[in-house]
C-alpha cells in the first residue's frame, strides 16, 4: 500500500511540478509553503542575485499549500522528485527524518551557516551533533491584549508580572463584563501553550532536559504543579463561552472582533486576528499590545524563557553542496535583514534583528535576544505522538475532565510508549 501510493504520488508530483532544468546547470529545488506572495517574490530576487554570482546554478523556488505540503512531503522525500531544500518546523519530526536517513548531513559544509546564525537556532536543526538544516525565523508565544478593553476595565499590562497577577487581571476584566481570554479549544494546541509555558516556568530548562534524558519522569511534581496552576485559571472561567467548539481561527476572530481582551498566541496572530475579524481590521496596531507569559515566582524557570518556534530549512538526502551554498546565501545577514525590514520575519542571522521595524515584532525580537532558553513548541519538539497527548490533556484540563496528576501521568505513559 505504502509502496504503491509512493509510486502514484511521485507520478503525480512529477506531473504537477515542472522540473524545467537547463541542460548544464546544477538545479537547486527549494520547496516552501509561504502563501504570502510578497515573500517568495523577494526570494526570487535573492535567487537571481545568487545565480549571478554563482554561474551554473539554477535555483528553483517551488510552492505547495500548507496542508498539501504536509500530506505530500512524506512520500515525496522517498521519491526521485524530492526537493533539495524544504521547509521544516524542526522538532522531533525533523529528528525522526534525520535518523531515518531522509536528510543530508551537511556538517562538513556548514561552517558558514554556523558563523552567521544564532547557535540556539542552529541547534534546532542539529541532530546527534550533525547538521541537517538551518533556521530561518523564530517566533514567540505570549499574551496579545486589547489596549482599549484593558483601559476600560482598568487593567495595566505592565503590572502583569506573575501568574497571580494574571489571575487578578482576569477577575478584574470579568467584573467589568469583558471576556478576559479568547482560546481555540477545539484545535487543542492553542491550550497547550498554557500548560507547557507553565511547565517551563515551574520546572525550568533543567527539568525539561532531565525529562528528555529520562532522569526524571514527565509526571514530576513541577509539571503537576504547572497543571494545577492552569486549573486555577480555568476555575475563573476566563475563556469565551463555547471555547471548546472554537478552533484557532474562530478564537483569533473573537479577539479581532474586540470580544475578548487577551489571546495567548505567536506573533503570526497579528495578521490572522485581522483577517479573521468581521471588519477585516481586527485590533489595530495602536490598540494591540503584547506582554510576556507571566512568571511563577517560586518556580525553577526564569520569566525570560520563551516558548515558540524555530522554523527553517531541511536538506533532503542527496542535496548538492550548491544547495548548502544557496541556503548560506539565503540566510546571510543581508538577506535576513531585508526580510526583517519588510516585516516578514523575526530573523535568526546574528545582527539582523536590528532591521526589524514592526513595533510588535521588535518587542519579540528583543525578548528572544534576552532569553537564555527558547523552547520549541512541545507538541513539535516531543513528536506528534507525545505532543498529541500533551494537546489532549491540555484541552481536558481546560474542561476539568482530568486531574493535574492524571494529566501528567498520561504524558509519561505516552513518553514510555512512544
Amino acid at each position, binding site marked *: *500500500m*505504502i509502496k*504503491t501510493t509512493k509510486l502514484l504520488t511521485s507520478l503525480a508530483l512529477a506531473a504537477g511540478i515542472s522540473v524545467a532544468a537547463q541542460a548544464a546547470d546544477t538545479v537547486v529545488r527549494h520547496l516552501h509553503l509561504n502563501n504570502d506572495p510578497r515573500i517568495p517574490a523577494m526570494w526570487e530576487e535573492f535567487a537571481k542575485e545568487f545565480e549571478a554570482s554563482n554561474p551554473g546554478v539554477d535555483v528553483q523556488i517551488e510552492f505547495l499549500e500548507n496542508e498539501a505540503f504536509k500530506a505530500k512531503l*512524506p512520500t515525496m522525500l522517498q521519491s526521485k522528485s524530492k526537493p533539495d531544500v524544504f521547509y521544516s518546523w524542526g522538532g522531533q*519530526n525533523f529528528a*525522526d*527524518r534525520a*535518523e*531515518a*536517513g*531522509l536528510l543530508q548531513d551537511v556538517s562538513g559544509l556548514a561552517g558558514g551557516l554556523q558563523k552567521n546564525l544564532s547557535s540556539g537556532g542552529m541547534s534546532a536543526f542539529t541532530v546527534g551533533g550533525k547538521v541537517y538544516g538551518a533556521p530561518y525565523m523564530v517566533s514567540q508565544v505570549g499574551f496579545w491584549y486589547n489596549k482599549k478593553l484593558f483601559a476600560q476595565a482598568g487593567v495595566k499590562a505592565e503590572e502583569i508580572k506573575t501568574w497571580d497577577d494574571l489571575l487578578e487581571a482576569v477577575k478584574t476584566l470579568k467584573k467589568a463584563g469583558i471576556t478576559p481570554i479568547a482560546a481555540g*479549544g*477545539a*484545535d*487543542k494546541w492553542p491550550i497547550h501553550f498554557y500548560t507547557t509555558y507553565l511547565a517551563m516556568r515551574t520546572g525550568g530548562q533543567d527539568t525539561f532536559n532531565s525529562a528528555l534524558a529520562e532522569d526524571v519522569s514527565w509526571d514530576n511534581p513541577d509539571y503537576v504543579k504547572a497543571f494545577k496552576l492552569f486549573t486555577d485559571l480555568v476555575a475563573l472561567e476566563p475563556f469565551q*463561552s*463555547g*471555547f*471548546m*467548539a*472554537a*478552533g484557532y481561527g474562530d478564537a483569533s476572530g473573537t479577539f479581532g472582533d474586540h470580544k475578548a481582551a487577551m489571546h495567548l498566541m505567536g506573533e503570526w496572530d497579528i495578521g490572522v486576528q485581522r483577517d479573521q475579524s468581521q471588519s477585516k481590521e481586527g485590533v489595530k496596531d495602536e490598540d494591540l499590545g503584547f506582554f510576556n507569559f507571566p512568571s511563577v515566582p517560586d518556580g525553577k524557570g526564569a520569566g525570560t524563557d520563551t516558548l515558540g518556534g524555530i522554523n527553517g530549512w531541511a536538506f533532503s538526502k542527496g542535496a548538492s553542496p550548491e544547495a548548502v551554498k544557496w541556503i548560506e546565501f539565503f540566510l546571510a545577514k543581508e538577506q535576513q535583514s531585508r526580510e526583517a525590514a519588510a516585516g516578514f520575519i523575526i530573523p535568526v542571522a546574528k545582527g539582523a534583528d536590528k532591521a526589524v521595524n514592526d513595533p510588535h515584532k521588535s518587542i519579540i525580537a528583543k525578548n528572544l535576544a534576552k532569553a537564555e532558553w527558547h523552547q520549541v513548541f512541545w507538541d513539535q519538539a516531543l*513528536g*506528534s*505522538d507525545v505532543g*498529541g497527548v500533551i*494537546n*489532549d490533556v491540555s*484541552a*481536558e484540563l481546560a*474542561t476539568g*475532565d*482530568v486531574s493535574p496528576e492524571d494529566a501528567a501521568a498520561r504524558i509519561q505513559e505516552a513518553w514510555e*510508549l512512544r
Partner: protein
Amino acid sequence: MSSIRSWFYRNNQGGRITTLLLFLPPALTIFTLFVVLPLGEAGYYGFFKWKGLSAISESGKWMGFENYSRVLGHSVFHSAIWNTIKIILVSILIQLPLAMAMALLVASTGALNNFFRLVFFMPFILADVVAGLIWRYIFDGDYGLVGQFTTLFGMDPYYPLADKTWAFNSVLMVVVWKYFGYHMMIYIAGLQGISKDLLEAAKIDGANNWQITFRIKIPLIMHAVKLSVFFSVIGALQFFEMVIPMLPGGGPSSSGHTIVTYLYTYGIVRMKVGFGSSVGVILFIVCMAFAFSYQRYVMKMNND
C-alpha cells in the same frame, strides 16, 4: 496434444475459458494490488512499532500483540466503539423507520411526490465533508442557527459541539438527515416493484390501508429493508469524513471519535503506522465478521 484440444473444446463451450483468460487477469491484478496486498501489509505492520518514515526492516520494532492490547485497552477506543454502536442504533431505530414512512408517503408517482422525493434525497448528494462543514456552522452558538435561536428566545448561548454529552449526538442528527433519503429511495424502488394486482386483490378482499401497508407492502420489500440495514451497519463502521470537520481532534475530551477517526488520529496524524494498522485490522475483522454472518444468516432468509 489432442487430449488438451478436446478438453479445451469440451470446456470452452460458449467461449467460457476465453472470457476467463481475457477478463479475469485485469480485475484479479487490481484486486490483489489494491486490496489483498495492503491487507497483508497492514496485518504485518500491526505487529510493529513503526513510524513509516524508512523501511520497516530498518526502523520497525517488533511488538507482538502489544499494539492490539493497547488499542483494546484505550478508553478513547472504547468511546469510539460506543459511538459506532450509537450510529447503528440510531440508523435502525430512527433513520430506517423514518425512511420507510417517507417512502410509503411518496412512492406513488405524481408531480408533488417527485418534488418531495428530490427534496428528501438532496442531502445524500452532498459530500460528507461538505455536510459536516455546513452543520458545523449551523451548530455554532454565536453565528449559527443555534446561536440565532438562543438569542431570539433570550437564552444563554449554547454550543452543542463543545458539550461532551451533545457533541456526538449532534453528529447522529446529521447522519439521519443525510442518509434517510438514500434508504427512502431503496424502499421506493422496492415499493414500485410490487405488483398492482396484489394490492388490488387485497383491496377487493376488504383490507384497509393499514393492513395493506403492514401485511403486504412491508413484507414484500423486506429484502430492501435487510439491504439497507446492511448498508447502515457497514456505513457506521466506516463513518469518517463528516466527523472530521464537525469535531476536529475528536471533539470535547476526545469523546466524539468513530473507529476510523480514531485510526486516523492515533495512527496517521501521530505517525504510528504500526498502531494504526492494528486498528485497521480490528476494523477489518469486525466488518468481515458482520458482512459474512449477515449474508449467511439474514440475507439468505429471502429464499424461505
